[in-house]
């Protein structure tokens, strides 16, 4: 067991973890933050995307020990004072979610994308979200939501 100290959604969390513990299971099982979903075992689907020090990361591809001394933001930490983040709000208004399982990962990936590129073209959005899979929406409204969030942020 190894001791880690990770700031999750603004709160410093210290815990003993097994070296093989993945960040996503640390978040889900040890911290009870079940908003981050697991959709595959090959780092393909992006359902588990979180922000580590502000950058999007597939949390099934990172060991908890690798996240030691970092700041992690999960879907639970995105809203401020109960108000949805502009990307969350845009997903709602553009009907960019159906079953909702891929949604936390898409939202986190989109937040990261818009930080890097505040006014992306449609093609840049599609390429930027290539690491996330959705089976319900055909991506159409997800792309629209990211465009809407970009417009709202500009």
């Amino acid at each position, binding site marked *: 067991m190894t001791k880690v100290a990770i700031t999750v959604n603004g709160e410093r969390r210290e815990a003993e973890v097994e070296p093989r513990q993945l960040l996503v299971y640390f978040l889900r099982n040890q911290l*009870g933050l079940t908003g981050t*979903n697991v959709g595959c075992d090959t780092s393909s689907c992006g359902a588990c995307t979180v922000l580590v020090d502000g950058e999007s990361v597939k949390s099934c591809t990172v060991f908890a020990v690798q996240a030691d001394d970092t700041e992690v933001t999960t879907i639970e930490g995105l809203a401020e004072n109960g108000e949805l983040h502009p990307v*969350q709000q845009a997903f709602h208004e553009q009907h960019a979610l159906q*079953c909702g399982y891929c949604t*936390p990962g898409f939202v986190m990936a989109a937040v990261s994308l818009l930080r890097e590129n505040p006014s992306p073209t449609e093609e840049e959005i599609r390429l930027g979200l290539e690491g996330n899979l959705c*089976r319900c*929406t*055909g991506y*159409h409204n997800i792309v629209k939501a990211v465009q809407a969030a970009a417009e709202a942020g500009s």
Partner: protein
Amino acid sequence: MSVLGNRVLRKEDARFLRGEASYVENMPMEDALHVTFVRSLLAHARIDGVDTSAAEAAPDVVAVLTAADLDVGTFGPPPHLHGLNAAMTRPLIAGEVVRFVGEIVAVVVAKSRAAGADAAELVMVDYDPLPVVASAAEAAKDEVLLFPEAGTNVAGRAGSPEHDEALFEGCDVVVSGTLISPRMAPCPLEPRSVVATVDDDGLLTVWTPSQTPHHDRFGIAGMLGLDPAQVRVVSPDVGGGFGAKQLSTEELLLGWVARRLGRPVRWTETRSESMVALHHGRSMQLDFTLGATREGKVLAYRVDILADAGAYAVLGSFLPNLTGLMASAVYAIPRIEIDGRSVVTNTTPITSFRGAGRPEATQTIERAMDLLAAELGEDPVEVRRRNLIPADAFPYKTASGATYDSGDYERALDLVLEAAGYDELREEQRHRREQGVPLQLGIGVSAYIEISNPVGETEYGDVEITAEGTAIVRTGSCVHGQSHETTFAQIVSDRLGLPIEKIDVHKGDTAEIPKGTGTYGSKSTQLGGSAVRGAADAVVEQAKALAAEYLGDADPDLEPAMWADLAARAAADGRLGELKASHEFTSPPSFPFGAHLAVVEVDVETGKVDLLRLVAVDDAGTVVNPLVVEGQVHGGVAIGAAQALYEAYSYDEDGTPLTSTFVNYAFPSAADLPSWEFVEMETPTPNNPLGAKGIGESGTMGSTPAVQSAVVDALSPFGVRHVDMPVNGENVWRALQAAQA
């Protein structure tokens, strides 16, 4: 003003957006033991022995169970689907023979998921390989039998093997071909996760992401020898289903293990496990012949269906019946013959997957129509137009046996051509052909029909007014992303005059909702929506009676203040139960339809295909919420286009899956697909008071043939008349090479 027909934002979104959804995997259940399935790595083998001793001795292992421990029967085809081979049922744990890679051979129960995974590696199975039947074509020969006692590999039949020698009499032109609809993995983003507990009274509760909790309750009770009253099934938030999330061996085993050990148990499948264990869709070969006059009027059509059932006769074996039923599609065809068979193979079983037997019907007739147009040297759109069932012909009974409720197929075709700018596209295509550039344009048009609520079922709904004057709506329909919490609230809002914020929709718990059929076959709005509408109307009648008594007004304004007042008075008198009613709604199938147009760019030097546009007219009758309907169309169109261009689940000749992870199964991302162009059209059905037809699966019907047709169209100057799906890369390049040889 009614809330119906408006783009109402979804009530259910907040919990998904905030990471607060109630997927089964999110249940804490700290005392639950973890189940790990040991699955066969061989497609067909005799089991000579299973040695569990090392696994049983591993740390934190509570039990290792095999077929020798089973005291329940085998899992067969759903009893209401007649005509399936009853000898081809599946044991919950394989004991003598494994019949596909992924079949369960042992169950490890451990104190942690990691301990279970480690111990599962220690279970030693002694396999004696048997000859493998990896394709339906091989199975149809009946040389190697998966179930020797059955004497055949045929799991189910559709249509008739009788052949009318005069079927194509009077036809000047006869075209024929083969359509192969590739196998697909349903890939809901949420892998299955099940929790089972037994309480002190012996009640077995199974939490499972299911489309059909009420069916599952009876299925579990039947298999485990319990009274249905001893079984509760809860389907909380479900992360996608697409037809595949219905009762199967894993859910039954969780219930069985919980009862056997008297402990709560849980299981969450990995994606790689899901890709071999969750049942697949499609996988049909259709040999067709279409005969017409010289003027392009179709007279006769014959389809031989060879469906791959996978290793056991489950729902997929029934699907050729739907394919045959829908063979005539949107066309008036006087004579039709269908001869369909499902055969078992050493592959993952086939079940319903978005479209379930109907896409194959459209894919086939549309391919045939394109070949007929090519043979006649005419525009494929005009050949289709000549054969459309006219708008004044409804109800219309087809020669393949369906009675269509309503439609205007020519208008759908006209709308899609206009929205896409068909003539301009043909002009651009002509230009590129003259230039001889490597990137050639292809245009594909499909006209399609769909059958929703395909076997004409019933759904339950009830409405209850609370003491605060709000409403609780309960539906037997279930949700895996379809937005019932919003659309059903809209339907009830329209009747009660309460805003949707004051209407809560409950679903998915057999303890709370007395009956239901669930969500499949695109039937939720037309059946479930009509049921809650009927219940709401009954509550309105009750309210009028109470209002006459309390307020001296037998016809009160239906608005929130009235409901609050009436509910408060009724509650004070203990009469709130008089503001509660249930309703069951039954109807025959309805027939959504539409037309899709795809534009592709094909690199004729490499075979690479880019889908540039897909324009979709999808008419699902009266629309309750256009936002939701468009979302359903987008998702359906994406899956249809994905089948045409990318996805094909494949096996090698030993029955080993070649595409069993998200790395090697071509699930498209946003970068692989365009935005979709949706065109509205509404032709109500007379079959329910809402006028609504189904929309969940429609998008898959039209898009696949439109895309396939577009790619063939791009290659037609090179003499190509057919390309097998996926129509991209290798298949396109090979078709070009063959045509130029």
